[in-house]
């Protein structure tokens, strides 16, 4: 026998959960955990951090459940909570100092060298190389502000439309565009510095 809550629509679930039906909210958690984890994964790398952030997101959603009026999708509403919660958590955590960029592990340096040598992405897209690239991406993104990181991940990496990013962040569309413009410049400048170092000292 299937659980009737599994068949319920998002709006029905939200209404039941608003009436303090815990099982309805448990169903919302089950349904949207993958989406919330996906958003949290954009901000945090460690599994424990992603899990903690996701739990915080659902706790906030539960607390603010009365604010959901069913105008937009529940997924969109949760994505917005997820984005703002992660942004706040990231702002609260310490930023990595920029000087750390200079001390690059050998594997990450190799990834940059391959890129400079023009080796195609497909050729060095093994699981190991992907991890090295993700590590390097985290190091570079760590030198940027949380807002820059957010906009780059959503606009450039996920190719989300500006309108959706504005909806997820609560920013205006023009703010998203300006933030993306500045974030691209800052990220490009950070990567340029690394590339310049690799060009000057390819053996290091």
């Amino acid at each position, binding site marked *: 026998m299937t659980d009737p809550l599994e068949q319920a629509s998002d709006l029905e679930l939200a209404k039941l959960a608003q009436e303090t039906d815990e099982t309805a909210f448990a169903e919302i*958690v089950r349904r949207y*955990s993958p989406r919330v984890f996906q958003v949290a994964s954009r901000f945090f790398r460690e599994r424990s951090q992603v*899990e903690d952030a996701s739990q915080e997101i659902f706790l906030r959603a539960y607390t603010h459940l009365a604010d959901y009026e069913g105008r937009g999708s529940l997924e969109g509403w949760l994505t917005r909570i997820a984005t703002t919660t992660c942004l706040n958590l990231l702002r609260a955590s310490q930023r990595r100092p920029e000087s750390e960029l200079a001390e690059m592990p050998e594997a990450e340096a190799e990834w940059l060298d391959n890129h400079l040598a023009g080796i195609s992405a497909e050729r060095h897209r093994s699981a190991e190389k992907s991890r090295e*690239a*993700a590590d390097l*991406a985290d190091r570079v993104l760590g030198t940027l502000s949380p807002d820059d990181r957010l906009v780059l991940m959503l606009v*450039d990496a996920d190719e989300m439309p500006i309108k959706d990013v504005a909806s997820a962040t609560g920013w205006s569309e023009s703010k998203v565009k300006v933030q993306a413009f500045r974030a691209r410049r800052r990220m490009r400048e950070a*990567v340029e510095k690394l*590339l*310049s170092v690799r060009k000057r000292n390819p053996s290091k």
Partner: protein
Amino acid sequence: MKENHIVNLLERRSLGSLSVAELERVKAHTAACPECLLAYQAAQASLLLLQERASVIVEPPPFFQTKVMAAIREQKLSSKRLRFSRVWQTARPLVASMGALVVLLLALTFFNNSEPPTEPSNVASVNDSAPEWVIVDSDDAGDEMTYSQALTVLYDPTMEAGDADGK
């Protein structure tokens, strides 16, 4: 010319969203401009890094739902405790003053009961059967004689009534 540099284009739009014609323009420019070539390589590397980073997705663990629901129950409990402590903070002076008043009333009741019972005033006047004998001269209230003086005056033959009067 600086106006023809492609850096601004790289910042305005994501590299992935550039059209074929725009990319051709970028490539043509970078072939002759080393400054823009570095910027283009950096933009390419940035996009690759971001895409690799975006491919890292943590999956929810099996008991995540249970964990969240437990956290919600815990949050509810702690918010109840917090609410009670807030009410207590507000009501504490009132409760304390009421307590003090009750203690005061109890103390008064106790001390009242422990004192010996006092008799009514009319009983006291009956027991007061031996008041000091005083003979009051009705003519002069200030001229008083004690009981022994009165006996002396009445029965002493040597004294005359006039002497007794002091005349």
